[in-house]
């Protein structure tokens, strides 16, 4: 019986290793074309997510505004195009980890605290952000906010002139109405006043290359699920 059990376990391990090799041998952005591989990666990654990622991003993957940890359940990405390769790069080397391979081109300046914008300026910019994100806003303040946005604050340098952001800088798309640190006017005010300098650790080599690839595929797959499916999924 022991031999049989051992044989079964060995066969399982060999089969598992073949899947792992297949996952790593496939170019990251080609993995989603192979549903069986995606299913394998998801099964492998779900417990890893619960163990390593859920503390910040939430067990339901919807993020935690208090920590500035973004929701991973939508298809809105701070860095890269949301493909497996770009997600994997973020997990590999992290965000603002201090090493040069991490995502750290720039950060959000503390416009209020550094005295670049006055209290009134910031409130006007907040109204403009409410406008571009499709919410109720004060017209005159938003117009003034737009002038500041494109003027001395140079917000467009990172968030783009049309406020759609730039995933190279990690500057959020302000028109998407998706907020990492809360989207209420007070939250927006604080983000502009104090700036943002969120970090995420590099997971390489804490996790193996295979585990990171599996997580990247998992996040890619979840981000493309219909919202209803994500809502009903609950804890991964």
């Amino acid at each position, binding site marked *: *019986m022991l031999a*049989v059990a051992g044989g079964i376990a060995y066969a399982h391990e060999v089969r598992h290793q073949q899947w*792992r*090799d*297949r*996952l*790593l*041998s496939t*170019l*990251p*952005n080609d993995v989603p074309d192979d549903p069986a591989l995606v299913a394998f990666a998801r099964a492998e990654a779900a417990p890893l997510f619960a163990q390593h990622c859920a503390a910040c991003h939430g067990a339901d993957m919807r993020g935690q505004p208090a920590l*500035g940890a973004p929701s991973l359940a939508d298809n809105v990405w701070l860095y890269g195009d949301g493909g497996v*390769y770009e997600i*994997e*790069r973020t997990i*590999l080397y992290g965000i*603002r*980890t*201090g*090493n040069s*391979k991490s995502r*750290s081109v720039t*950060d959000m300046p*503390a416009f209020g*605290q*550094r*005295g*670049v914008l006055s209290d009134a300026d910031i409130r006007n910019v907040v109204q403009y952000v409410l406008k571009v994100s499709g919410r109720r806003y004060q017209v005159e303040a938003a117009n003034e906010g737009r002038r500041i946005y494109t003027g001395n604050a140079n917000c467009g340098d990172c968030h783009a002139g049309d406020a759609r952001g730039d995933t190279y800088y990690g500057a959020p798309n302000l028109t998407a109405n998706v907020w990492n640190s809360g989207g209420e006017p007070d939250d927006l005010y604080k983000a502009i006043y*104090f*700036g943002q*300098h*969120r*970090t995420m650790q590099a997971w390489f080599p804490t996790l193996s*290359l*295979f585990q990171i*690839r599996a997580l990247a595929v998992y996040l890619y797959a979840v981000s493309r699920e219909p919202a209803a499916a994500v809502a009903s999924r609950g804890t991964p």
Partner: protein
Amino acid sequence: MSAAPADGQAAVRRSWPRRMLERALARPGRSSVLPLAAVVLGLTLAALGMFRGAPAPLVEVPPGYVALVNQKGVLESDLISQVENATMKRFDEATPEEKRRVLRSMIDEELLVQRALLLDLPETTIEVREAMQQGVEAQVAEPYWSLPPSDAELRAYYDKTRSDYTNDGTMIVHDLVMHVGGFQNANQSTPQALSDAADAVYRLRSGASVDYAKEHYGFVDSNRLPAVEELDFVVKMRLGDKLFEVASALGNGEISDPVVDVDGVHVLVMDIRRPASVADFSSVRDKVYQAYRREQGERATAENVRLLRSQAEIILAPGQEE
């Protein structure tokens, strides 16, 4: 012709593991068989573990890597990143030649890094040591920077470091000198010069011009200072500590008492004085913020070093102190 199998035939059809198990259980000494087998198996595994050699070197590149350089892997993800950066194209749009060129440069880089480690550059080359030190400092500082200070903390930091925001004072000052002795005025004695200078000071304070003092008392410009507004530290450098101390105490339009210096008796006439002052918080907010962040980084480094020290074994030679 078929018939129901006899009991013996049914026994023959049982699987071999079951038969072995039944046989083991049927024996009187069965209670010791399984533990004994477990012991033998455990000892065998332990022996295998103890005497197994070092892992064999990799002869194939593992999945996820594109090359092995002296057993050190080059990540496929890094190749993609570097190809895209070098060619400004998506990886799948880059030509095979472009990919080859980038991979070659990555392998060269890895070889040089390995060579650097072999040459022990971190031990022998100051620039490498500094780069490593800065790399670690950057890593430990980043998380600190994610916690912005409150306004009260920033203000308290400004109050604590107020002297860092002092503007240097400026002045336009005439330095008149009545030379004593030497080829310039060989017959003049110091007491006589002091007496004349005191009289000149009285006149100047009464409204006489500098030219009047020069013409009637023999004062000349010391030429230590140009007649333009100068920063305090420049004035100090040119006048010397003794005269600068006198000058910095004068207000706009004030005349100093006579001061004896190495070359004669000096009188200082202050045209414009802008004393040093501390910039107010609102005008230097950005500098305060940057300085606070720098200090956060330094604090992070200090804590990191403290932790490393607590975990390190450091032995000093006799007579050495740190």
